[in-house]
């Protein structure tokens, strides 16, 4: 930094600027400042000679700054001349001289306009989103109908592969989480019911809560986070690399090849996981009831048999495939919505998880109303 890159001297009517040292990238900041300073101080100069003889190294940065200085002088009507240019620097100066580089600023709208546009865009996005969801659901159903007519076109291997990913490999984590939830619910129940001497009712609470609501909800939320995000990322990456276009040009229907096996795997897998998860939660609840609440397992079981009916269990299980459908459709819509960039992939994956969890909870509410009205 200590080195001076440009010195100025006035000789009669002529201004002599003498360059020195390395006019290269890492000095560009200093060089720009020195050049602007000189141009400002000697604004009145009518003739300028720029001596490049002592410039040891020159790269595009230095060459452009020189070119910019010359253009600036010419624009004010001063006669500028470059002298003493080294032979090896000439080619670069010529290339840069041919450049038209006016500054093109990055486009930028007004703050208010931008904010309003953002609001408008997000409203349109919600509308578009509902449209996409319905379209995907329709495409999926249509593909299923086609497959019902031509069952041999169904991708059995792909479906089994997805089933392995979303169901079989998810079993340990699902069992662990639902087991813990069962324990916690039972512990809280016992703790509070004990005040009324009504510990035994914890069995009713755990049984009904787990079988009707918690089992299917926890499993759906886990699956949305675990498999929904994976679906979106997989399809999105395939979209980015034009693999989906490639499929289409080979005469395959991406919905049949990619979407149907994934959603079918979820629709089969989530009820199984819900069943396993509910059992694990009941087991956890029973264990805590025994160890913490002193309710022996045989008492727990006989009480459970009175507290729940087949209907309680059915309510939970009926919901499971619908939850799976919502998660699968949301994930596939988001995946196919990915545009070219890595950022868009990230956004869509986030959107996929957030939206499917949201919809799962909304759907659960709707089911609660529905079952209440039919008396289940």
């Amino acid at each position, binding site marked *: 930094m200590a080195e001076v890159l440009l010195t100025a001297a006035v000789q009669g009517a002529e201004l002599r600027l003498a360059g020195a040292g390395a006019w290269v990238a890492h000095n560009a900041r200093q060089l720009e400042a020195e050049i602007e300073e000189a141009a400002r101080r000697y604004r009145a100069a009518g003739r300028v000679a720029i001596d490049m003889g002592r410039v040891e190294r020159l790269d*595009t940065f230095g060459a452009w700054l020189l070119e910019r200085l010359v253009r600036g002088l010419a624009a004010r009507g001063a006669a500028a001349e470059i002298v003493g240019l080294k032979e090896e620097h000439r080619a670069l100066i010529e290339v840069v001289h041919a450049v038209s580089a*006016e500054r093109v600023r990055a486009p930028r709208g007004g703050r208010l306009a931008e904010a309003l546009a953002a609001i408008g865009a997000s409203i349109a996005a919600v509308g578009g989103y509902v449209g996409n969801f319905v379209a995907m659901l329709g495409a999926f159903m249509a593909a299923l109908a086609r497959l019902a007519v031509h069952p041999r076109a169904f991708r059995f291997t792909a479906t089994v592969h997805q089933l392995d990913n979303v169901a079989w490999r998810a079993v340990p984590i699902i069992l662990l989480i639902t087991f813990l939830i069962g324990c916690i619910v039972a512990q809280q129940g016992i703790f509070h019911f004990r005040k009324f001497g009504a510990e035994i009712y914890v069995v009713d609470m755990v049984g009904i809560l787990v079988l009707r609501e918690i089992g299917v909800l926890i499993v759906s939320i886990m699956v949305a986070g675990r498999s929904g995000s994976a679906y979106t990322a997989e399809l999105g990456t395939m979209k980015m690399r034009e693999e989906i276009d490639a499929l289409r040009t080979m005469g395959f229907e991406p919905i049949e090849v990619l979407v149907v096996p994934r959603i079918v795997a979820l629709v089969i897998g989530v009820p199984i996981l819900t069943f396993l998860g509910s059992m694990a939660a009941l087991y956890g609840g029973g264990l805590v009831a025994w160890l913490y609440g002193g309710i022996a397992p045989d008492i727990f079981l006989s009480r459970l048999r009175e507290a729940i009916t087949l209907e309680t269990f059915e309510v939970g299980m009926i919901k499971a495939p619908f939850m799976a459908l919502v998660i699968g459709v949301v994930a596939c819509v988001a995946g196919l919505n990915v545009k070219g960039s890595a950022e868009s992939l990230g956004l869509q994956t986030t959107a996929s998880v957030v939206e499917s969890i949201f919809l799962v909870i909304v759907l659960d509410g709707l089911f609660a109303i529905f079952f209440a009205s039919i008396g289940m």
Partner: protein
Amino acid sequence: MATDGHGEVVIAVRGLTVGFGDHIVLDAVDLDVYRGEVLGFVGGSGAGKSVLLRTIIGLLPRRAGTVRVFGVDPVAADQATRRAVERRWGVLFQQGALFSSLTVRENLQFPVRENLRLSPRLMDELAVAKLQMVGLDASVLDKFPSELSGGMTKRVALARALALDPEIVFLDEPTSGLDPIGAADFDALIATLQRTLGLTVFMVTHDLDSLYTVCDRIAVLADRKVIATGTMASMLASDHPWLRAYFHGKRSRAAASAPAPPTVVQE
């Protein structure tokens, strides 16, 4: 290998062995690259050309051997030295590797912004200048990489590789995926930039036309080794079976009989 009047060695590879598991890709490879030359690096598909390139720039670990760039081993050096060496080279990856969530402008300014603290005005002007040097114009500045054609992507990636005015550029199959005219333009572009910026170019290529028109020297990778280095003339004269098959095959004769004029400057 002798220095035989070529001048300073900027990349020196000695006894380099690279493998994945028990698959040895490069076995005790030696290679020198001299300042200011365009080295064409050829070899069959899957021979390990990209692996050598990636090992030189320190992206892949090596089993044995040394790599020196500007006399420093980038992997063994401390971080500051390594960063200093990295600033002196630019890399054009096979797929371009533009940052997909940044515009062309931001892609070009990214290395500059991180390394030099320049005024926004200067950075904007230089982005346009670099784009024009690679034969594009300011209209692509605010496009995203997904909106560019294959040839444009390569050019923008080259402009980004040149963003800091490096001394060495590594090009991995720069003309693959371009049509013959686009490829010839790109070759001419590399030749022009090499002359004006005094670059040293390490170019992995399959393109015989590129070898004829822009490369000063050629190195051939086969059987996990660099089996020959030398000028195009010496490659054609050699009677090594692999070299004969490569340089005297059907496609090579077409390239040899109609060599493009060596100093085309286009766009």
